[in-house]
């Protein structure tokens, strides 16, 4: 214990004491700055909190390293110093010779720091071990997905994706050679688009060097563990860090709503018991923020800089790498993004969209746009492109006629149908409704290529506020209007669930599509299709519970977690560009379905028992593929939840 009586220990004791007010002051300043930055981007608040953390570390270090006189100057302003220094008045004497209380404080603090740092080092080792043991290279298709996400995020560094048995949720480990860790088999549980947004979130952590910053901030927290202000700053950093990453995902082209849903379903997929109390970074807050983004970056740079200067005053400047990563890559600038997501949002094909997103220079993009319209020009020899002109006329028309209180015309249901299918052949407006019902419109199309004859689309203004919504989603519409060239759909089969296991999961197979229905929702797996649109409709109300479409590679799986109220449902899968699956593909499909089923079961049932597998009585053999088999085929399944 001799060391505790040296001047160095005395200096530490002094620094520990002074940090009580220094830490409180810095935290108070941060509080003011955060209030000023309420409407600023999360990145500003994150930087402010990081600066505060750095300032705390710096002020502690400076106080500890400054000779005694410094301490003497500060001591009188802090009453606790008097409490701990019974000698009272003579502050320079207090600074020079440590009192017993200070000595004890230093000893206890030192013990705490050792324990906490040891724990942190153990955690670091355990995290490294997750990467090195029991982790295997990810399936090539996920690596391909990661490459795509990296292109979108503009990250050139090598990033490894591994699947691990130990990880409970996807996470980034490492700074120089970052590794994204995904729970084994986890990627099967999400549709590719959703998996991609999660990868984008992880890439955002990599791009922002969050792993390193967090390591450093954690070390500061461990050293200054006794001060609640430090815990608070740490919490702010963690919270804003996730917000920053969420913002980047959106900036990189993620859709707010679907991203929010992805996070929610990820949390649902996660193994383990829910926490008893809310944990630090609240997922609910993040989702609320995603769904209702704050009003743009309103704070101007001046108060921001002033506030930052305030926090940084007397502190070390933040290392340069902490600054927000500048736009190193020429981002898809606004006109092109607008072109993609507004102008041609409804008519561009997935393949084209992917191709456009992979372009690097504006020159390439201009060329692409030119080619895009050229491909659609009905009279390629002439100067006019009738298709393009008609398309822009439709957009202008929707904005003029269908805008409602919340959406521009082109985004409304009526706008979407109008842009895609053009003006209806007949239109009936009932602005005052029928027999006291809400106002509605019915549009009739005599023929829509690929959908059918006499298609009637109905828009209802349920709330009587001008927001007309389509009552029948096109998926249902497809099912109701038999396409002239598609084979007659099989009669929907009622599938009563076996009475002995009312809560189990059930597998159904219809043609080349398999469906799992059970507690966790429904999983649908198809093979041999190029594009699948799956929709689930509640029969009693006609409500479309969900509808999503995605490009698919052979054997891809898709799990949608839903809680379905009791009722009768119709699941429809529409496949385009199908091929007839081979026996190997069918076997692969069943295998993957079983895997997905087990994954779902494991969440509620610990023991894997034998699984009920029901083959649909009217399993249909698909007709052999022909060159002209591009017509969509609808597979239907009616089932009851009771």
């Amino acid at each position, binding site marked *: 214990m001799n060391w505790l009586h040296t001047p160095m220990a005395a200096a530490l004791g002094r620094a520990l004491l002074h940090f009580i007010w220094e830490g409180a002051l810095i935290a108070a300043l941060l509080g003011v700055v955060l209030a000023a930055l309420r409407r600023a981007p999360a990145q500003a608040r994150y930087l402010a909190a990081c600066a505060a953390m750095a300032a705390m570390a710096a002020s502690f270090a400076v106080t500890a390293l400054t000779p005694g006189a410094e301490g003497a100057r500060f001591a009188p302003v802090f009453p606790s110093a008097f409490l701990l220094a019974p000698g009272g008045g003579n502050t320079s004497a207090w600074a020079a010779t440590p009192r017993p209380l200070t000595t004890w404080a230093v000893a206890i603090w030192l013990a705490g720091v050792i324990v906490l740092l040891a*724990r*942190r080092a*153990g*955690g*670091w*080792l*355990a*995290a490294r071990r*997750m990467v090195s*043991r*029991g*982790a*295997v*290279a990810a399936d090539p298709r996920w690596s391909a997905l990661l490459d795509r996400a990296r292109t979108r995020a503009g990250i050139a560094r090598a990033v490894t994706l*591994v*699947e691990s*048995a*130990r990880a409970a*949720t*996807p*996470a980034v*480990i490492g700074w120089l050679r970052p590794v994204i860790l995904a*729970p*084994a*088999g986890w990627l099967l549980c999400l549709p590719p688009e959703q998996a991609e947004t999660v990868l984008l979130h*992880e890439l955002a*952590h990599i791009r922002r060097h969050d*792993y390193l910053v*967090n*390591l450093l901030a*954690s070390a500061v927290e461990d050293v200054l563990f006794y001060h609640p202000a430090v815990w608070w700053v740490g919490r702010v950093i963690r919270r804003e860090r996730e917000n920053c990453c969420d913002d980047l995902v959106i900036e990189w082209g993620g859709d707010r709503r679907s991203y*929010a*849903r992805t*996070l*929610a379903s*990820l*949390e*649902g997929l*996660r193994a*383990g*018991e*829910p*926490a*008893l*109390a809310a*944990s630090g*970074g*609240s997922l*609910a807050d993040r*989702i609320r923020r995603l769904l209702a983004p704050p009003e743009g970056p309103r704070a101007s740079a001046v108060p921001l800089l002033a506030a930052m200067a305030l926090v940084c005053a007397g502190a070390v400047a933040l290392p340069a790498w902490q600054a927000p990563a500048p736009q190193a890559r020429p981002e898809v600038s606004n006109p092109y993004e607008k072109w993609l997501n507004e102008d041609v949002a409804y008519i561009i094909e997935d393949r084209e969209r992917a191709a456009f997103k992979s372009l690097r220079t504006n020159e390439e993009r201009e060329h692409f746009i030119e080619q895009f319209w050229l491909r659609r020009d009905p009279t390629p020899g002439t100067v006019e492109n009738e298709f393009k002109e008609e398309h822009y006329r439709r957009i202008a028309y929707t904005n003029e006629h269908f805008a409602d209180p919340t959406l521009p015309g082109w985004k409304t249901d009526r706008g979407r149908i109008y842009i895609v299918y053009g003006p209806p052949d007949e239109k009936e407006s009932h602005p005052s409704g029928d027999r006291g019902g809400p106002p509605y419109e019915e549009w009739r199309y005599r023929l829509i290529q690929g959908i059918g004859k006499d298609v009637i689309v109905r828009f209802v203004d349920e709330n009587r506020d001008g927001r007309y*919504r389509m009552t029948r989603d096109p998926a249902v519409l497809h099912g109701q209007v038999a396409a002239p060239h598609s084979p007659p759909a099989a009669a929907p089969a009622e599938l009563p669930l076996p009475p002995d296991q009312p809560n189990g999961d059930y597998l159904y197979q219809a043609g080349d599509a398999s469906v799992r229905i059970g507690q966790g929702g429904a999983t649908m797996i198809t093979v041999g299709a190029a594009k699948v649109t799956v929709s689930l409709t509640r029969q009693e109300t006609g409500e479309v519970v969900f509808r999503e479409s995605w490009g698919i590679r052979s054997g891809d799986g898709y799990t949608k977690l839903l809680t379905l109220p009791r009722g009768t449902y119709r699941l429809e899968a529409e496949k385009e560009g199908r091929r007839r699956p081979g026996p190997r593909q069918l076997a692969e499909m069943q*295998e*993957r379905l*079983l*895997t997905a089923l*087990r*994954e779902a*079961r*494991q969440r509620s049932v610990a023991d*894997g028992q034998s699984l009920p597998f029901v083959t649909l009585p009217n399993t249909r053999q698909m007709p052999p593929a022909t060159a002209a088999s591009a017509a969509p085929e609808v597979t239907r399944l009616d089932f009851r939840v009771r």
Partner: protein
Amino acid sequence: MPDLPRPTDAELEILTVLWSRGPSTVRAVHDVIAQRRPAQYTTILKLMQIMAEKRLVRRDEEQRAHVYEASRPREWTQRQLAGDLLDRAFAGSAAELMMGALAARKASKKELAEIRRMLDQLEEGR
């Protein structure tokens, strides 16, 4: 069901491949593992045969090339792994250091209900 032995690290690696890829042949498992570290085919074969004896994996002998399948789900084994000293002692600390899309701890029931409510509102509001 009688308890299975806790898998070793090498066995865990093989199980991870089986969970991620589904039932696979020894050749396929070896190919995946060899991507990250040098591994002998015969070593993997031997390991998997031992694992079959320990009943950590199931072997389907119907086909010419034997197909192996993990006998227990990932979550089950994950709970078992939590018995490992280093993992148990430092799981919390490790989770704080890993940068994930979700917080280190699972959301509370109340929070999950709140999230569900928000998403439901979103569906209705559209």
